[in-house]
């Protein structure tokens, strides 16, 4: 009886707030006791945290910012002094006062003429013209030519400017300038999905001839899916064999799987070129053995087939490794149990073995797919015209056309697409089912 009352008292006590022996609340005491070790743990991870912030979050953030921000028609930044001068002030004021669709009258041309003088002074005509050129080709020379003659222009400015170049009467020039007049714009994203703003400001599809990006996104998606599937089909049996062999053999074979990592990506890609080109080893062998007529050499390089073959080979280890790491610990007694319970070997595989490898398939597929979607060197070298992927175009805009905002918008769309896929994966399979090793 005495025991029971003690128990009841203890139970009541446990429902009240627990305190330490000297009356401090237990939670506070616990936090204080752990604070030191938590702080020390934070100091240990802090370098990595800053490194990741600096090298990952900041550049991506900046890239995403650049995709919606282009100040080339708003500011001129001096390269040496880092001084920024506002440009096109008068014209931007006119755009603010007059809604879209207003016919540019004398006041507008006067503003433009004054701004062209400023452009000439700060040597910004080329940059501002390039910005307009992104939306309407041929505009850069219009700007540089007009800016050169801006000082001599006199009222009436409309006629004077049209004298310089009658393209100034083209409403698309004015629409493009209105678009560029604010540094923040979604137009690069529109361009990235083959859309543009019409003169009246509505969104419309660009010419059939100039449509490019959507097709490339789709091609990238389809090729990536195909390559992911191929690596799965080729990698699953290898991974299974590696996982079931005794460790000393499987380690040796694993080295063979990893061997491609030891050679440079460029070397591997180039060796595929040696093998697959029309005068290459494979074709020569086929012709030499008489399987193929000399004039019927198969075109396996500089097209999609080349991209698919080379990328499947290069990405295969990324599928095999997660599969292997998931398959290795699967005890063979599961399949044996299934067999002893009456399942055929196919049923045992389908119902028992395969479901247990899904985390590895998911991880491998996600890894290969994400790598494939962003792949650059291999398609650039072996892809030819129809084997190019979206990343090749991003690179083109980064290095050749120097339209960084469009490159950033394309990359931003790619990133968004991958995030959507990731989310879908989480929805369908569950991200906690992902097993990389």
């Amino acid at each position: 009886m005495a025991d029971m009352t003690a128990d009841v008292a203890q139970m009541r006590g446990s429902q009240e707030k627990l305190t330490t022996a000297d009356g401090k609340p237990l939670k506070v005491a616990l936090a204080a006791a752990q604070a030191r070790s938590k702080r020390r743990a934070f100091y240990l991870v802090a370098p990595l945290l800053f490194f990741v912030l600096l090298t990952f979050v900041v550049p991506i953030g900046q890239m995403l910012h650049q995709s919606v921000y282009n100040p080339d028609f708003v500011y001129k930044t001096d390269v040496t002094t880092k001084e920024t001068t506002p440009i096109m002030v008068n014209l931007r004021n006119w755009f603010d006062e007059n809604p879209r669709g207003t016919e540019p009258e004398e006041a507008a041309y006067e503003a433009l003429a004054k701004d062209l003088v400023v452009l000439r002074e700060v040597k910004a005509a080329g940059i501002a013209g390039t910005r307009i050129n992104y939306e309407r080709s041929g505009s850069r020379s219009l700007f540089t030519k007009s800016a050169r003659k801006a000082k001599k222009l006199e009222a009436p400015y409309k006629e004077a400017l049209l004298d310089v170049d009658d393209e100034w009467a083209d409403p698309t020039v004015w629409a493009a300038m209105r678009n560029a007049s604010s540094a923040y714009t979604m137009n690069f994203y529109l361009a990235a999905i083959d859309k543009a703003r019409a003169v009246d400001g509505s969104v419309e599809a660009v010419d059939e001839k100039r449509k490019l990006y959507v097709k490339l996104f789709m091609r990238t998606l389809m090729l990536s899916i195909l390559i992911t599937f191929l690596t799965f089909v080729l990698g699953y049996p290898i991974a299974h064999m590696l996982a079931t062999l005794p460790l000393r053999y499987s380690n040796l074979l694993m080295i063979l799987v990893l061997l491609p990592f030891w050679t440079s990506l460029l070397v591997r890609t180039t060796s595929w070129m040696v093998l697959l080109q029309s005068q290459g080893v494979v074709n020569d062998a086929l012709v030499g053995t008489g399987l193929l007529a000399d004039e019927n050499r198969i075109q396996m390089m500089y097209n999609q087939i080349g991209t698919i073959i080379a990328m499947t080979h290069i990405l295969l280890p990324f599928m095999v490794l997660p599969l292997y790491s998931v398959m290795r610990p699967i005890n063979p007694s599961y399949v044996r149990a299934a067999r002893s319970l009456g399942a055929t070997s196919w049923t045992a595989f389908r119902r028992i073995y395969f479901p247990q490898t899904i985390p590895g398939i998911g991880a491998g597929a996600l890894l290969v797919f994400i790598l494939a979607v962003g792949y650059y060197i291999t398609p650039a070298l072996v892809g030819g015209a129809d084997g190019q992927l979206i990343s090749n175009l991003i690179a083109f805009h980064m290095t050749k056309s120097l339209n960084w905002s469009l490159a950033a918008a394309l990359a931003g769309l790619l990133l968004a697409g991958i995030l959507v896929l990731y989310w879908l994966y989480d929805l369908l399979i569950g991200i906690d089912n992902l097993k990389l090793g």
Partner: protein
Amino acid sequence: MTDTAFVEFDRVQKSYDGEVLVVKDLNLTMPKGEFLTMLGPSGSGKTTCLMMLAGFETATHGEIRLDGQEINNIPPHKRGIGMVFQNYALFPHMTVNENLAFPLEVRGMEKSVREDKVRRALDMVQMGAFGNRRPAQLSGGQQQRIALARALVFEPELVLMDEPLGALDKQLREQMQFEITRLAHDLGITTVYVTHDQTEALTMSDRVAVFNDGVIQQLAPPDQLYEEPENSFVAQFIGENNTLEGRVKAISGGIAEVELHDGRIIDAKPVNVHNPGERTRVSIRPERVEMNTARLPEGAHTLEAEVQEFIYMGDIFRTRLSVAGNDDFIVKTRNAPGQTRMEPGQKIQIGWLAEDCRALDAA
């Protein structure tokens, strides 16, 4: 014998590498309903035998018959043998119910029949409330019960168990030993049980086959195995045992006189020895050594022994003696009224009945 044989190994041999025989000339017949345990140290070939019976290993030579039919070439899923694995092998991605329904499903049974059978199987192992759990949510003992229920749910006539209790703690193991034997007898199934735990083998089985080196050393009911080991391996492997080495001096009237190294004579029952002059190892159980030599029959030989150590174990006393050069000679005595405690250094006389001391092969 062949008429009643349900499981039959007929001159079965097995080699994995073509150089070493893991199972050498195995002959074994089991009647229906028997609980037979294969007992032996690891690498003795017992698990290989079980795997050959289940169909996961093929016999290199010889025939395995089940109910009179040769099964060497029948794939495992057509043998209809239930099996319980060492690590239970419950499918981790399925619930308990799905695990149990699996063998019924692959046999094409209807859903209502399946549910009924699954429920009955779960009730049989007192796990009726756990049908919707995943294996990972169960304790080791509970998983063991489920594995047992799964092996029985499709009503096989033969069930194989490969060290099923190895991962459980002692108390749970004893409880499960009892439950498995009860189920096996109630359902009338024939069971082949593999273990390296001799207690398990002795308490559960109708017969025990002691394996060593790919050969059945002795196949006998537990009591016979313990009390009448046929060779020194079995004598050593089963239970505790004292051995003394010597040479047979004479055999007469079913009693062998064995001369020990120091020239002293003891009485033994000749088991593996036939002629005077043969080397032998005599074996005697610690509880059969008599320290009160007055109780021995007239003319029995006795030996002098020196107490080395006296261990109090509650119900028994364990006395370690030095006898004829063997410092590890153990004697167990019951903690009975009037039993005296020995002191180390004390000199005593010991002896035994000739039939309790078995003269075995010298190996």
